[in-house]
């Protein structure tokens, strides 16, 4: 579709032609393959944007020893799927380190759903961790993404069928047999 700047009236008239964007998060611990999944399903070259953390991160980021450092950057990988001319789906790989959890506030807001990736090879027991402690409790030694499971959507959407998580063919993910998280 052509969106020539000269066709649009100044102001907000052009918004009628603009596609609507929705957001799906790809969450999971450090190194489970979020970036891999984004790059597998995205129609564009996966992009990376950075957000500068300023004093917002105080108390979240451990600044001991680096007190002089007042800013740091967090990278987010994201991809895009164009459903049709009026609907864009953006996939955001959230930062896996738990010290970047404050970013969830903006990332989660308005998200249609989330896909939680977990590395089953690293689990010491059969019971998977809940989403709320996923990033923090996962052993950092397990980097293998060979047996990555696709978790459930974090945000319940009314009217959405329970089988709404599509199987990702191009990455080595398989749907989880059970809901890994015991959250309400």
């Amino acid at each position: 579709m052509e969106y020539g700047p000269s066709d649009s009236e100044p102001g907000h008239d052009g918004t009628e032609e603009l596609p609507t964007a929705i957001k799906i998060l790809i969450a999971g611990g450090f190194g489970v393959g979020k970036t891999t999944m984004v790059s597998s399903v995205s129609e564009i070259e996966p992009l990376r944007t950075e957000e500068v953390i300023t004093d917002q991160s105080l108390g979240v980021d451990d600044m001991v020893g680096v007190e002089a450092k007042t800013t740091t950057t967090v990278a987010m990988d994201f991809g895009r799927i164009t459903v049709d001319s009026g609907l864009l789906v953006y996939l955001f790989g959230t930062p896996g380190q738990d010290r970047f959890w404050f970013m969830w506030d903006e990332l989660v807001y308005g998200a249609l759903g989330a896909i939680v990736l977990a590395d089953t090879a690293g689990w010491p027991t059969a019971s998977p961790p809940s989403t709320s402690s996923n990033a923090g409790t996962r052993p950092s030694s397990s980097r293998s993404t060979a047996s990555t499971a696709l978790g459930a959507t974090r945000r319940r959407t009314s009217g959405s069928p329970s089988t709404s998580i599509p199987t990702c063919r191009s990455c080595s993910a398989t749907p989880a047999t059970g809901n890994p998280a015991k959250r309400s």
Partner: protein
Amino acid sequence: MEPTGGVWYDESAGPLVRPYAVTKGRTRPAAAKFDLISVVIATQPADGGPGLEPEHVKILQLCRQPLSVAEIAAHVNLPAGVVKVLLDDLLQRDAIAVRAPMTRARQSNKRVLKAVINGIRAL
């Protein structure tokens, strides 16, 4: 100290100009609130103009096609927070149009949900 003639900084040293220097120190948009996936399109040609920085012009050039804030940030290689301030400048000049992402209230639309599911399955 003697200059070696070579490049004395590298990627890992970070940007030479601090990010918010581009916005003259502003860290928040003055008026509008931009989401990472707000879709932006230019409504004016990117021929510059008084008061426009090169970054503004670059954004206008990128936004000939609809682009999300996150995509713009990635293409201009600036943090999303900086890009939001620059976009607010452009919006106040009526140089861009912005569409906010679908809110939760509108998510109950089953047709949209089905379109998303079918679209992803068709990949």
